[in-house]
């Protein structure tokens, strides 16, 4: 299948339309929602770029902590991890656990809200 324009190019085009053409003509609540919509598209652009590598790293981290097989999905492993923390079987002292959660959350936030103050604070203290 064709990839010209690519998903990123299409999203960037819509974002430019909102920022440069639509938003300046809006006021009040609609202007606010246009700003939110533009931010959502920026999130999507970061997601397309960063998620594949971040999710592979997350999967590798989960496999190491949970000692599961290669075929388990990230969702299944996260559910498994949640159940084990909830059951008291794992906690912050479990080797690798805290570091994994911090690395994964930093990756998630780098997509979701890269300017958030708590992200900068976390990056200044390596896990």
């Amino acid at each position, binding site marked *: 299948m064709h990839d010209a324009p690519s998903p990123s190019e299409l999203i960037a085009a819509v974002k430019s339309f909102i920022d440069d053409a639509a938003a300046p003509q809006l006021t009040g609540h609609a202007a*606010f*929602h246009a700003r*939110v*919509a533009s*931010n*959502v598209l920026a*999130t999507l652009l970061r997601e397309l770029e960063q998620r594949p590598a971040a999710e592979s790293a997350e999967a590798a981290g989960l496999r190491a902590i949970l000692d599961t097989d290669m075929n388990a999905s990230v969702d299944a492993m*996260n*559910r498994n*991890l*949640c159940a084990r*923390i*909830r059951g*008291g079987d794992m*906690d*912050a*002292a479990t080797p690798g656990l*805290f570091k994994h*959660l*911090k690395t994964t*959350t*930093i990756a*998630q*936030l780098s997509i*979701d*809200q890269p300017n*958030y*103050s*708590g*992200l*900068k*604070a*976390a990056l200044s*203290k390596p896990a």
Partner: protein
Amino acid sequence: MFRAIVAKMGSNDQIERALERWARRNFGDTARMADLKRLSGGASQETWAFEVVDGGATHRLILRRAPGGESVARSSEAITLRTESALLACADMAGVPVPGVLGVFEPGSDVGEAFIMHRIAGETLGRKILRDDAYKAARPVLAKQCGEALAGIHAVERDTLPDLPQSDGADQIKKYETIYRTFDLPRPVFELAFAWLKANKPAPQPPVLVHGDFRLGNLIVDEQGLASVLDWELAHIGDPREDIAWICVNSWRFGQIAHRVGGFGDLDALLGAYAAAGGTRFDPREIDWWETMGSLKWGIMCMIMYEAFRSGGDPSVERAAIGRRVSETEIDLLNLLERAI
């Protein structure tokens, strides 16, 4: 759609006439009601600004009204407007800066369930308070003033209070864990936070009146500092440390992470003023548990707002986007837990 617009116009008209009658009753036959406008914000209660012109004097006032005039509890623990107006009177008596209440309307009255209070001049937007030059002199004294206001709130005599919900730390863990599990969107960081909160519960404090949402956004600040404490809808009987910690939650520091209290002040300044005003002397470490609870609570509140989108109840892009703010509270929780463990 058209019917809804007509109904809304009718309701404005009804409010205008009711306020006109109220103005004459309270300020005399020559008093006139002017400049009625609906203010934005306040999801669960309507807020209207208006003026009463009485000869040469202009009274700037606020009408707080149940949506459509009929009491609908936003959730089981949001208090009614009548309770809110009674609380404002209690807080006023205790020396807490709050808008004075001028009139209370019972359900079924010509304006519906509502009350009228003074409109206090100043700013509520967190980013403006933290950055604008107008509040340069206010920022250094704000932590102390917040400590004094909280000491006043927490000292209100229990037997003078209207009926309020009770909620301590254990109740809140239970409540928010139940909500979180209903969504079936498991997040390991939240699991870790719940486990840590349960294992490290602080010894309970004697229960007091808790404001429940004491943070920038709900405080009016003027050039001199704290002018008024608003939004008492989440008031309850609980642990005083909940209020002190909530304004410390990083989500309410608006980017100014170095200043633990609201992005403007230091916790020692707040705790010192709180104790000097008659409150219990708390150690900053006693606030950590409640700040962790606060970040977790805000994360789950963001999930609740996203759920409104996911369930089809509110299809707005804003409700969808807030789901991508939950990770902000996850990093805050990890930063807090890293310090604690």
